[in-house]
């Protein structure tokens, strides 16, 4: 391979990796917050697909990708509200409700899409790109890393916001207490259900934005089942990262690279089946778990509804 070809290959790879990583990053960061607060949010896939559909619908109708993100966040938030109501307030089984919401929203969005767009399959115009001055001029890496939709930079910034939130704010302490010892938080005078509800709602909004990004920026259109397990990947990332936002970023990039590798290899004219490449990140993570496998320190109260006065 000559130099120019290598450059193109790497450029496509990095660019694609980041595009693919953003929804995973958003979902992973969102799920991480729920889990920190003690809620296993299996409904995140449903929140994402709701965000993808309504994000696309808003962007298409309002002709604004930014409004699309708001629409996506609102849809994710709405689904999360149901989840919070049923699982946090009433204490229903988080796995049943999570899977129920996922199935229902996959069906509902596919149904609505069928009615509205099945004949037209409209596309959005290519999203605007924010070039970071100077940095974007670096050869190879510049265009790949610094010529993206602004949401990409915002999501990366979100990693640091989360680190700050968890380490340096009162709310971060509350989240951790809600996941590790909810009774202690309660007697300290902070409402556990409210803390968990806020966490689940934030998860919904982030997952919704992730879904909207997938449809509006990544694909430029909505197709049924577009999330294709991205939300579940978010759960995997959050559980592997165990409360550390930076690890979610690394994990999302790892999976992003493998998703992009398929396209990049096609650009390079190397024909390896998609499925083989898609297996790589999972294999890598599993090998990591086998080699470094140790007791995972998930929040003690993860998945357990809190009721005052029960010990």
């Amino acid at each position: 391979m000559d130099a120019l070809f290598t450059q193109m290959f790497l450029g496509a790879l990095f660019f694609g990796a980041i595009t693919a990583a953003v929804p995973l990053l958003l979902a992973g960061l969102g799920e991480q917050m729920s889990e920190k607060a003690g809620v296993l949010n299996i409904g995140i896939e449903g929140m994402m697909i709701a965000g993808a559909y309504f994000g696309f619908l808003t962007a298409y109708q309002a002709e604004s990708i930014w409004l699309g993100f708001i629409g996506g966040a609102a849809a994710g938030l709405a689904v999360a509200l149901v989840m919070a109501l049923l699982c946090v307030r009433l204490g229903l089984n988080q796995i049943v409700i999570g899977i129920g919401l996922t199935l229902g929203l996959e069906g509902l969005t596919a149904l609505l899409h069928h009615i509205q767009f099945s004949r037209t399959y409209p596309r959005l115009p290519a999203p605007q790109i924010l070039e970071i001055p100077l940095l974007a001029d670096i050869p190879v890496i510049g265009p790949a890393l610094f010529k993206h939709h602004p949401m990409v930079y915002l999501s990366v910034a979100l990693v640091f916001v989360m680190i700050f939130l968890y380490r340096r704010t009162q709310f971060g302490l509350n989240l951790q207490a809600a996941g590790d010892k909810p009774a202690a938080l309660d007697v300290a005078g902070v409402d556990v259900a409210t803390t968990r509800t806020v966490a689940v709602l934030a998860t919904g909004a982030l997952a919704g934005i992730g879904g909207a990004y997938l449809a509006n920026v990544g694909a430029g259109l909505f197709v049924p089942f577009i999330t294709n397990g991205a939300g579940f990947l978010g759960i995997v990332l959050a559980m592997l990262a165990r409360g550390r936002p930076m690890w979610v970023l690394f994990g999302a990039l790892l999976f992003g690279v493998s998703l992009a590798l398929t396209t990049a290899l096609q650009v390079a004219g190397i024909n390896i089946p998609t499925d083989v490449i898609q297996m790589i990140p999972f294999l890598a993570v599993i090998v990591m778990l086998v080699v470094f496998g140790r007791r995972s320190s998930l929040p003690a109260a993860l998945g357990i509804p809190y009721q005052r006065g029960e010990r």
Partner: protein
Amino acid sequence: MTAGSPNSSADSSIAEPIVTLSGVTKRFPGVVANDDIDMAIRPGEVHVLLGENGAGKSTLIGLLSGLIAPDEGTIAIDGRATQIASPRHALALGIGTVFQHTMLVPTLTVAENLLLGEPWWRRPRKESLQRRIEDLSKSLGIEIDLDALAADLSLGEQQQVEILRALSRNSRVLILDESTSMLTPEGIEELGDLMRQLVKRGLAVVFITHKLKEAAAFGDRISVLKLGRKVGEISPDRFRSLDHDQLIAEFVEMMFGKRSGDPEDVVRSPHPELRDRQPLLSVSGLTLAPARGNPGLNDIAFDVRPGEILGIAGIDGNGQTQLARVLAGQQRADGGDIRFDGKPVTDWPVHARRDAGLRYLTDDRLGEGTVGSFPVSINLLLKQIGDPPFWRNGIEQTAAIDAHARDLIRQYDVRTPSEHTPIGRLSGGNIQKALLARELAEGAKAVIFNKPTYGLDLANTLATRSRIGDVAQSGKAVLLISTDLDELLALSDRIAVLSAGRIVGTVDNEPGARNAVGRLMGGLAA
């Protein structure tokens, strides 16, 4: 520091109460936990709530700390009827509670735990906290590392943190729920001094206990609860006029309706003839690496002879549970030998040791001793799953299982609606009886009791102790692990003191043993 009126303790009996309960009643399915309780909590007093388990003390605390709401009656704060809606509300009213089970988040530091409950939008203000806490702790003589992880503190330290937390929030009323159950004799003394300091500053302290001696030592005013009712109160004036023994006698009369000394004051008569017998259980060089939250085991060695009770004293968390688990086979030691009945059993699994006659009665009755959702009958056979005649070719023989259960239920007086009742619904005392039945069932030769009376009421405590005495009487070897010195003195032939995973000394149970054990626990030579 506090908003309370600066009354001195001398004229406290006339001080206006901060909290007044009148006619407070709380019902739970099947029981009246608090029945028409009247009580006043005044500044400058240590108000002792004395009662057995099930007397309604925990419910009363729940009511005062906003965890539960009364069905009838009113709670007045500063004379105004108030509904304490939540723990947050209770804190705002100046009622701080230190619960029996620690309420610190183990994964947060001490400082972060103290900051919990500040408005959520705020940055944690560690600097101002540090100043406040420093002042407070200096004046109270408490030393706390704010940057330590809560999980790394001893139980006593955790309790001090919780007291500091209550005080740093300007509590006027401090409720201490069974706060001495995890402390050393010195720790209990310190807590007593601390309470005295606090009431001098004008706080009201509510001290909950079931120990008569502590009530007599630390109280100003005593309320005695029995089966949800308040059966008596001793005012400060009267309290001061009685001496220790008179007080104890009065408590006993109120609680049990009979005049006698402290029923816990029993001393075991020595059995010198045991010395000559061959040891049944002998342990040498037993070692276990320290792990998070426990000090491991360090070169443990002892013998227990048939008919003998060897007590293991020590503050909770010094390796007692690890020792019991290693002996029972639940956990593998890193080194050392265990010989039982002449055979080396170091590498034997749990069931082989059990079959050979080595039994372990755990202190964690619901956590590991039983499966709460399973019926009593199955729990009685939990360590024999698959054994004939209860299972044949792996198939459950319901009739045999039920008959076995009914037999043991009768023999050990387990109060349960039926053998099919999920064991988690029984009271602690009855669960303990079921566990006794399971572990003492045929073939027992040596029994390890781990805190056998922890959390039991007096009646069940005494019944369990006499059962342990009978076990030794019948020629079995007993290893009695307990944090209750009175219990060890009442039952043991010899007492070994466990500290930081090491046996720091063994004393014969003869006059003076209390002092010797206390010194060993406190890190002094016997």
